């Protein structure tokens, strides 16, 4: 594992991503759902919305870092609002 140059913050980051994926996989198996159409006018399932959330959050964090400065906890609050909006309306 040495060559991968692990650090605790990146390890925690990937553990969170992996557990989120696992939770959503289990949810998709236990509670199958029908896709729905939201404001993007495309059919999405929970998994799609999770993907949109994660990808969008990455861009929000980068934009925050570039425009506001290195204060990521605040960016994460924006991400949570964004995640809520995606799961509610997309």
């Amino acid at each position, binding site marked *: 594992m040495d060559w991968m*140059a692990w650090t605790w913050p990146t390890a925690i980051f990937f553990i969170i991503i992996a557990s989120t994926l696992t939770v959503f996989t289990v949810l998709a198996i236990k509670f199958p759902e029908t896709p729905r159409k939201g404001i993007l006018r495309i059919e999405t399932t929970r998994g799609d919305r999770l993907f949109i959330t994660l990808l969008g959050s990455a861009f929000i964090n980068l934009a925050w870092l570039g425009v506001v400065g290195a204060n990521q906890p605040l960016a994460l609050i924006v991400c949570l609002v964004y995640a809520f909006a995606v799961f509610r309306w997309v």
Partner: protein
Amino acid sequence: MEKTINQKAWFLVLPVLVLVAFSAVIPLMTVVNYSVQDTFGQNQFFWAGLEWFDEMLHSERMWDALGRQLMFSAIILTIQIPLGVFVALNMPKSGFWSSFCLVVMSLPLLIPWNVVGTIWQIFGRVDIGLLGYSLDALGISYNYTQNTFAAWVTIIIMDVWHWTSLVALLAFAGLKSIPDAYYQAAKIDQASRWAIFRYIELPKMMGVLMIAILLRFMDSFMIYTEPFVVTGGGPGNATTLLSIDLVKMALGQFDLGPAAAFSIMYYLVILLISWVFYTVMINLDKREG
């Protein structure tokens, strides 16, 4: 008939997932680890936090490379898509010449990237290349190693030569799928050639054209080998596109941290475009199906 939806089928994808983990996910995780650290080699790392991301986001070099990249993709799309459609419209629809055209047009697609680069590198040389020598003999100043404009023209024409066939072949496939009845109806209505194109051929080609646009955009956005072989990113930084700049940073300067941060941002943009690509295709399929 309604398809049965069984999410358990996803478990069948597991073997692929393991393969992809080794070929892509684990290396990508390593890149993420690099992006928050600094190294001077010998596998020793120092914590740097978000410094590299900050630096890259404010780096003129990266934004310039991104600008050049977007310009490159925009130019080749504006040329290749209309040209490809034009070629497809003028191809013989059936018989020997149709097959002949198809074969001839697929030839550039079969040539490896670095060979395409070498072909154009030699073709454009003023001392021995047919193109460079002819232009020089005509009194036109052309030198892709010194003149920015010439370098850009060369890599754009090279890409057009390499990939317009793909657009043409896709557009041709789209045209072939239009039933004759549509053309007969247009003839009865005395529709003009333009009207036939605008109201029959274009709408029917929309699906494949969408695929062509997105494929060409993605490919041109990730292009490395051809411009690297021809111009090496020069003159100066004039043709240093994103991936060329990235390789310079990671391997040339061994700035693993900044290069990793750069890679992640590049990857995110590509991921976003791929997602749009996938979504558009799936939705077109649904509309047609």
